[in-house]
């Protein structure tokens, strides 16, 4: 994954300039260089060993036909695992599901998060309590969230959600098998909305007071103030929320494993779940590894764009 760093390019120029200033233009004698590096090395070496070596092994596996149950059946097959992926319609479908689930969750949660943050930014009695209630979904263990939604909320016979729909005359729906992606999105959006709300709220509260006062003095209405002062200020918080949301949500596994098991069929499987299935239920190591490599390449492409954004966000703060 070091390639990501190589791709990042101009975005980090400001960052390295700042570092350069602190570090007196990189010109240390060798002893001083190593004195500076020493505190970094344990963390760096640990991270390289634990995260990069398995990935190199993944690349190796992806060029082989290998079965988890018969470790000796290792044959070099070149790129044929990759060709299989290109022909695999399930892979394409689960890739699409990944995009739908990730973007669906992040965007809906962001819109709800903005609304809630604006509401919570007003002073009213008990605001701290309301905020505490609102962030709680994010603090629930994801495994617990998954079972809470798939059973207590969405179960077709005793689920609370269907009962509520019944009150307004809608027949019970078996959410996890009829609309599996919608069911997963409900649980995910519920969990991630508080996260987005917290970030946006931090942005709202970082607004310069004097500018808002001046706007009020000039008789600018709420909408005017919001559109021309608040929204531009919020922009980088929203960007950061979407970016971090994508990083976390794209790897969603717990909810899919526990709510729908990717089903019916593979209708609601995302890439992490599909790769897991191929490796641990299909025992097809080579195929799963090749998919992993493809996912990493896709991630590098997306991430090298995203990292620019991160660095911009982190730069602005100082």
């Amino acid at each position, binding site marked *: *994954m070091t390639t*990501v760093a190589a791709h990042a390019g101009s975005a980090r120029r400001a960052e*390295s300039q700042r570092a350069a200033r*602190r*570090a007196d233009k990189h010109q240390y004698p060798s002893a001083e*260089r190593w004195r*500076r*590096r020493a*505190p*970094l090395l*344990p963390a*760096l070496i640990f*991270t390289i060993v*634990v*995260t990069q070596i*398995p*990935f190199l*092994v*993944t690349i190796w596996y992806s060029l082989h036909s290998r079965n*988890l149950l018969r470790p000796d059946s290792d044959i070099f097959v070149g790129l044929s695992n990759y060709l299989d992926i290109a022909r695999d319609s399930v892979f394409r479908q689960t890739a699409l599901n990944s995009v739908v689930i990730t973007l669906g969750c992040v965007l809906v949660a962001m819109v709800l998060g903005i609304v809630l943050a604006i509401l919570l930014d*007003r*002073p009213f009695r008990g605001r*701290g309590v*309301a*905020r*505490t209630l*609102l*962030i*709680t*979904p994010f*603090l629930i*263990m*994801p*495994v*617990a969230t998954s079972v*809470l939604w798939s*059973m*207590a909320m969405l179960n077709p*016979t*005793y689920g*609370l959600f269907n*009962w509520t729909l019944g009150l307004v005359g809608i027949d019970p729906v078996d959410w996890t098998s009829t609309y599996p992606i919608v069911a997963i999105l409900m649980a995910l959006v519920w969990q991630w909305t*508080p996260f987005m709300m*917290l*970030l946006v709220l*931090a942005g709202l*509260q970082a607004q310069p007071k004097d500018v808002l006062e001046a706007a*009020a003095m000039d008789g600018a209405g*709420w909408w005017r103030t*919001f559109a021309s002062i608040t929204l531009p200020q919020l922009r980088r918080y929203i960007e*950061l929320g979407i970016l*971090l949301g994508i990083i976390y949500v794209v*790897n969603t596994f717990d909810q899919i494993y526990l709510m729908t098991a990717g089903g019916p069929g593979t209708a609601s499987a995302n*890439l*992490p779940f599909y790769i897991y299935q191929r*490796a641990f239920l299909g025992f097809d190591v080579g195929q799963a590894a090749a998919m*992993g490599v493809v996912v990493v390449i896709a*991630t590098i492409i997306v*991430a090298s764009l995203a*990292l620019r954004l991160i660095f911009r966000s982190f730069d602005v703060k100082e």
Partner: protein
Amino acid sequence: MSTATATPAPPAGRPAPDVAPRRGASRGRVTGSLLTTLTWILSLGFFFPVLWMAMTAFKQENEASSSPPTWFFTPTLDQFRAVVGESGTYVANSAIATGVSTVLVLLLGIPAAYALSIRPVEKVSDVLFFFISTKMLPVVAVIVPIYVIAGQLKVLDNVWTLVVLYTAMNLPIAVWMMRSFFQEIPAEVLEAAAVDGAGLMKTLRSVLIPMVAPGIAATALICVIFAWNEFFFALNLTASQAATVPIFIVSTMTSEGLFLARLCAAALLASLPVILAGWIAQKQLVRGLSMGAIK
């Protein structure tokens, strides 16, 4: 909960631009109370599934899975008793995996953050990029080799395997966060320490660590949350010996008989440590989740 309510973030004297335009105070008041009501409805709505989970945990099984739902019932502690009785090993494993990995993350991460901020190495941004890029590496892409390697090293179903993996999982976040705290330390303080001839360890111990203690606490909180909740590694790399709390929750779902009340009790107890920590440390939570970008 009282601590949480005591931390409404904005300062008291802050103007309220969003209490509607000033076209007559009474209209503003009406809009204001409507908005407040709406806020409460949404807050309670979001919280309600948690409340329902907690209520279900105090029911008997037949009340938990009844249709229509049971709203009034005699609370029982039966489910909690059963859960506490069965979950000992799982809790111990989770405590070790979470606690030890968090300590390791801090031991590795604090010096690294120091070398990326206060006395920086060359190419700071490349190193930072490397760390963050490992967070973008999909875990599924490495799970198979990890499984095979762990099998060959005979450390499958071993809680120390989880310790190592959780340390690697949280270290990049910790490095970024700790760096953002270190960067807030005024240069004069460090210069003073350098003039006094304090070495690295001395500077760390007597000057930096006390100043960034709140930052360390926030970093630890985030690491604890992620490690405590982790499911994917635990599912694939543990069996009976090293299984953690999330695995216990899944194991309460049996194929025979009703289990919803017991499941909710397990889910509630498992989430409780993180819920309480998050309620108490709301501000640190925001900073941690944004990896230090938002103060």
